[in-house]
């Protein structure tokens, strides 16, 4: 039963461009991008117990670097992507050194502050970033000579990247390092007493999450072909965080589901419901009251209860 569902889901995901209109294909591509971003944030929030309100930094910086390298310096997409990823990861490594001095609300505020600083720089340093006008004229790469201009081609590109990201992050959290990460989240003192270096475990995770944030940032800028300081804003970080929590932090599928929910409410339902902001708020309230751990764990529990009743 479960496998049939998964196979069905995979088939739909794979073949979507054959039966859905461009708008829906594009919407799905955006969901994959948001899902990668949410998954990378979940490494921190869900598996590391580090609630970050500045994760958009990595998405935004990667996007900006790639955009600048290709439009301003005429670099090839491959080289630009490499510089962008390396630069973003280096930044995450540095930010981790600062942010991990604090925990809890302090960590949240310091990540927020760091991302605000980046936002301020992107906004204000207009001779480099073009400030509030953003950067236009960005192209999409052509991996192996395949154009990504059509919605379908980009969709498959995003799908493949999302699958790779999902698998790699799943492997990461299931590995023995992932076990240490969860241990550090739950009982940092005990983990230290057992010989783990909690700081290092957190820092490595912070950098790794930055890496996947950078990947989602590249997809983001390829998709939008435009970049603006809002992509670095607290709102972007907060939206991703809300998606992670709503879907179920610390689960593998939850953040993807949550990210899809937020994205669909914002971009799709908003065409039918004028007061979509209020709806978003009400949905969050509802989720927390009915499924305090998030949608995915909530549904799992429900399914388990139903199964028990039927057996």
């Amino acid at each position: 039963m479960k496998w049939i569902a998964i196979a069905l889901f995979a088939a739909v995901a794979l073949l979507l461009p054959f039966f859905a209109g461009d708008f829906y294909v594009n919407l799905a591509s955006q969901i994959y991008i948001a899902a990668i971003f949410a998954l990378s944030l979940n490494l921190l929030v869900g598996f590391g117990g580090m609630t970050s309100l500045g994760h958009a930094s990595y998405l935004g910086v990667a996007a900006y670097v790639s955009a600048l390298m290709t439009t301003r310096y005429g670099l090839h997409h491959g080289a630009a992507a490499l510089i962008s990823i390396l630069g973003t990861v280096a930044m995450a490594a540095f930010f981790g050194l600062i942010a991990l001095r604090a925990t809890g609300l302090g960590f949240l505020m310091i990540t927020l502050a760091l991302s605000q600083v980046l936002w301020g720089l992107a906004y204000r340093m207009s001779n480099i970033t073009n400030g509030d006008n953003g950067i236009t004229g960005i192209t999409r790469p052509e991996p192996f000579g395949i154009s990504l201009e059509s919605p379908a081609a980009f969709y498959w590109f995003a799908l493949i990247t999302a699958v790779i990201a999902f698998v790699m992050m799943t492997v990461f959290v299931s590995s023995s390092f992932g076990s240490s990460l969860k241990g550090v989240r739950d009982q940092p003192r005990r983990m230290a007493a057992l010989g783990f270096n909690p700081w290092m475990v957190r820092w490595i995770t912070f950098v790794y999450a930055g890496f996947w944030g950078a990947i989602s940032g590249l997809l983001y800028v390829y998709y939008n072909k435009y970049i603006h300081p809002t992509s670095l804003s607290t709102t972007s970080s907060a939206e991703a965080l809300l998606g992670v929590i709503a879907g179920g932090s610390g689960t593998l599928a939850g953040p993807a589901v949550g990210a899809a929910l937020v994205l669909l409410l914002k971009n799709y339902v908003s065409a039918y419901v004028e007061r979509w902001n209020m709806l978003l708020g009400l949905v969050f309230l509802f989720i927390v009251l009915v499924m305090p751990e998030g949608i995915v764990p909530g549904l799992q529990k429900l399914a388990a209860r139903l199964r028990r009743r039927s057996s």
Partner: protein
Amino acid sequence: MNVPSSSLALEVTDLNKAFGGLKVTQGVSLSIRPGERRLIIGPNGAGKTTLFNQISGDLRPNSGRIRMFGEDVTRLSPYQRAHRGLSRTYQIITLFGGDTLEHNVTLGLLGLLPSRWQMWRPLSSYRHLVTEAHRTLDSVGLLHLAGHSVSELAYGEKRRLELAMALAQKPRVLLLDEPLAGLSDGERATVKALVASISKDTTVVMIEHDMDTALDLAETVTLLNYGRVIVDGERDQVIADERTREVYLGA
């Protein structure tokens, strides 16, 4: 005690710690030989657990030195001390409640291995670790529950699991913080036997309130009160000491 410090398992010299104005450790010095069984006693608030936390590295002392087998570990982090052979249990049980017993113990084993940095192989795929974990669980009589979640355990079983996690690491120095607290008589006997069976390769330092049981296990005893060492020496000597009586009966 005129033992050269390099041959001591644990040596604490003139340790001081204060929280604000409250002095919780005052000039504490201890010398513990390899293989020794040391019991630390004292009334509530005597600073026993605070002393443990400084030895394990969870707390930084304001001044003083801590040496393990001659090496100064005062400025080392808890995990660095663990790699030098220090292991501990907690007065308030600290386990990974959502995971299985097997996972808890395996994690304890993993902590000292380079493969803890491994980012692609699942922990459960390390067969030799799992085997080792099972052996340890067997030694504390919990093998039959290896696949169960910690949250299903009874209190006494959790205490034994705490012990198993520490023992799995084959520590050179083991700190036990009230391993008998909250146990029934039957469980108490079980844990007592367990502690008694620990190899002499391991030096054991134990805080315990239950004197009847604990004294049997101890070779030497340190009495703490108000953060100071009041009496320190061979077991019978300390029991007989006037000051011990004062602390326990006079107070």
